[in-house]
Structure formats: C-alpha cells, structure tokens
C-alpha cells in the first residue's frame, strides 16, 4: 500500500501540475472532506454493530456459535488447542456477521496460536488466512448500512448476492488450499 500511495501521489499530482494545476490542491482538500464524511457514517455504523456485538458477547451467544463451528474448524484448520480454536471461532463469527474490523483482534490471536515459529506459512495458517480474506458473510452489515444512508430503497437486497459471491470465493479458496497442501510443506514440517 505504501508504494502505491506514494506512486499515485507523485505521478497523479505530477500530471496535474501540467494539466490542471489550479485544481490540484482543491482535489486533495475534497478528498479529506469526503474522508471526514465517510468516517462519520462509519462511526455511526460501528457504534450500532459494536454495541449489538457486545450484547452477543455478554449473553455467551458467541461461545455457543463457536461450539457449533467447532467441527468445521476441525475439518478446515485441523487439530489445535482449545484457546486458539476459541479465537478462530470468535473471528469466524464476527466475519459471518459482517464485522470485518471487529474480527481483527481475534484473528491476530488465532493466527499467533497456529504459529509454529517457522518463517514459512503452514497449511492451517494459509486456510485461516483464506477464510478471512474471502469473507463469508451472512449479513454484510457495514455495506448495507452505508447503502441505506445513501437513500437506497432496499439496502438489504444485496444479502443474497453477497452470500452467493462469498460462498463461491470461499469454496474456491478452500479447495485451492487443500489441493496445494504440498506447497506449504516447508511450514508444515515443523509440526
């Protein structure tokens, strides 16, 4: 991301210097202005969903969901200790509920639990990584909320398409990791 940002700023502003220099700074300002507007929207979305997620946590519902997910975790990730499994379950639950950002802390701890101290990635880690980036979601809450704020008449009508699209990518990812298991043997041999 670093390099891309730097490249865009240098090349983009460089081009504007020759084509439209008077608009260059206004462009930057408008970017910052839009960023504030989006942050305010995201803030109100996060406030609601983090609030609800806390209720879920306090009722112990997340642990119940984690228990249901346990066989799936065993199949996909393989054997690991209970603590790590719990992190992975919480991470998966947050992802399923469309809270990608809330999934980060448990994702970091889950990944650390799978770590074998090698510099090469293991199959289990690759699978956990793929599950996180293919983002299987039951309800894409953030996107729905943002759409509703922009006056969509039926912001929820993307639930089914999102589910279908993310199931396709998740299955693609799972199958490819399982097929390419041999490619991760450098990391796996320490197990």
């Amino acid at each position, binding site marked *: *991301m670093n390099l*891309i*940002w730097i490249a865009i700023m240098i*090349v*983009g*502003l460089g*081009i*504007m210097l020759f*084509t439209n220099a008077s608009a260059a700074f206004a*462009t930057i300002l408008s*970017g*910052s202005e*839009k*960023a504030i507007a*989006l*942050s305010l929207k*995201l*803030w109100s979305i*996060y406030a609601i969903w*983090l*609030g*609800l997620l*806390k*209720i879920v946590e*306090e*009722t112990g519902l997340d642990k119940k969901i984690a228990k249901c997910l346990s066989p799936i975790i065993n199949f996909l990730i393989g054997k690991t200790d209970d603590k790590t499994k719990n992190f992975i379950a919480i991470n998966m639950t947050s992802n399923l509920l*469309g809270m*990608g950002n*809330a999934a980060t802390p448990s994702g*970091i701890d889950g990944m*650390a639990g799978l770590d074998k101290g*090698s510099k090469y*990635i293991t199959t289990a880690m*690759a699978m956990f*990584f*793929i599950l996180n*980036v*293919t*983002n299987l*979601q039951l*309800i*894409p809450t953030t*996107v*729905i909320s*943002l759409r509703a704020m922009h*006056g969509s008449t039926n912001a*929820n*009508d*993307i639930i*089914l*398409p*999102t589910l279908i*699209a*993310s199931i396709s*990518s*998740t299955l693609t990812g799972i199958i*490819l990791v399982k097929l390419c298991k041999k*490619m*991760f043997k450098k*990391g796996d041999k320490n197990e």
Partner: protein
Amino acid sequence: MSSYIIPSLIIALVVYSFVKKKNAYNDFVFGAKTSFDLILISFPYIVAIFIAIEVFEASGLSDYLASLLKPALNLVGIPSELIPMVLIKPFSGCGSLAVLENIFINYGADSYLARAGSVIAGSSEAIFYVSAVYFSKTKVTKFGLAIPIALFANLISAIVACAICKII
C-alpha cells in the same frame, strides 16, 4: 422479505439477553463506546486513501488504468466503472468503502453498479492488509501460494458479484 432480517435479529438478540437476565442497555453502551477506538484507528487511513483516490481520478490516471485493464476485465463481465473497486479492495477495506461511496454518489445507491460494487465490497477482504496485520504476532514472512490463491478467490467473487446482480 430481506428487510425483516436485521430488525428481527436485533429483537431476538435483545429478548435473548433479557431472558438470560443480562443488561442489554449497559452492554450496548459499553460496546458502542469501543467504536471511538475503531474510528480513531481507521480515520488516518481513510483520509490518506481518499486523497489518493481523488488525485487518482482527477489526474486521469484512473481512466488510463481502466482503459488498460478494460478488455481483460470486461471479458469476465466486470464493468469499467467497477475496476477501481476491484483494484483497491485487496489493499484496503476502508479504501474500497471510499470507492463504493463515490459510486453511490455518482450512480445512485440502487443502480446496478452500486449493487454490484456493494457485493464486491461485502464478499472480499483486504488481502494485503490482513496478511500484514493478522501475522503480526507470528514469525511468518514467506506466504507461498497463500496470496495468489487469495487474489484468485477474490477475483472469482467479483466476477460472480457482477453476474449475480444482473439476475437478482
């Protein structure tokens, strides 16, 4: 039908919490408080990315890159307007929300582009961000095939998203 899903889940959750003799109000307030931290962490990135996006578009770089990639992506059914979305998604979740919001403003939140863009934003995650952050407590530096597989899987979801939004 789908409009009932979220309100019903919220009602069910609050009722469940009540039955379990928990204090839903206090829990909600406590959880909502943590949104401060989350927005404080993501705000600087949103500013940086939004500025880059504006420069990217105003300088004509976006049109140039889109015209370069157009033949390949159009072939798999991804419209030119969504190319910035597909390109930025692997790098930043906030960035893709920024692009998405631009699409909402330019084409309307109920347009085909807005729906397909929403599905792309909702069905993939920032690969390079996750690979940097999630592995921060591990010693892993060699990702092998994990990143190519992730990119390919996300391309699949973008193709499916563009196709499915034409039908549903």
